[in-house]
């Protein structure tokens, strides 16, 4: 299939690698800071804050999964997470 034959709504072929990188950078920061705050909230047993921060973290990882799913043809490495639920799928 040539570029001209691909459906225009197919983001997998429209989004350049640089944009994927640019999207992952702030997402990485949001996830990192939220997880650090979550650890701190867990330490002081602030249950309300823990619940909210878990929602932020879950939303962030869901966004990452959506990005990976839509850009899968561009990706080669989906590393396993610590719980072993990820996959290693060359494409």
């Amino acid at each position: 299939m040539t570029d001209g034959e691909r459906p225009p709504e197919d983001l997998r072929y429209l989004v350049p690698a640089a944009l994927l990188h640019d999207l992952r950078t702030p997402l990485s920061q949001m996830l990192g800071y939220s997880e650090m705050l979550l650890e701190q909230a867990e330490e002081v047993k602030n249950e309300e804050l823990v619940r909210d921060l878990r929602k932020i973290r879950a939303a962030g990882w869901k966004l990452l999964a959506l990005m990976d799913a839509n850009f899968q043809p561009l990706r080669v490495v989906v590393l396993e997470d610590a719980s072993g639920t990820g996959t290693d799928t060359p494409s």
Partner: protein
Amino acid sequence: MAKILLVEDNEMNRDMLSRRLVRKGYEVVLACDGQAGVDMATADCPDIILMDMSLPVLDGWEATRRLKANESTRHVPVIALTAHAMSGDRDKAIEAGCNDYDTKPIDLARLLGKIETLLAEAAVRKDSAGASAS
């Protein structure tokens, strides 16, 4: 506790990851570009290096090649960190001399596992070298 050299040009990534590692008990020293990373690896003698690959002055691939070409730093494990996760990136990092590779966003538990594995392997090599020398 082990000393980690974090080479990362993005200020928020540097701040966030260094604070998380310090909270886990590691000593963390920071470099903002590849050349500073190479210089600090020689001067500060870290136990392991976390190397962003898209860096100013000297990129992470070239910085790693220089570290692995230097007798005083070649034994220090290097973990490549990148937000790219694209075709060829992992192979490119390993070919440059990186001992392992991880992607951003960081899964901290996974990264800590890789750090501890490489530190343990380095300790074994150091013990073996010491036994051979004595």
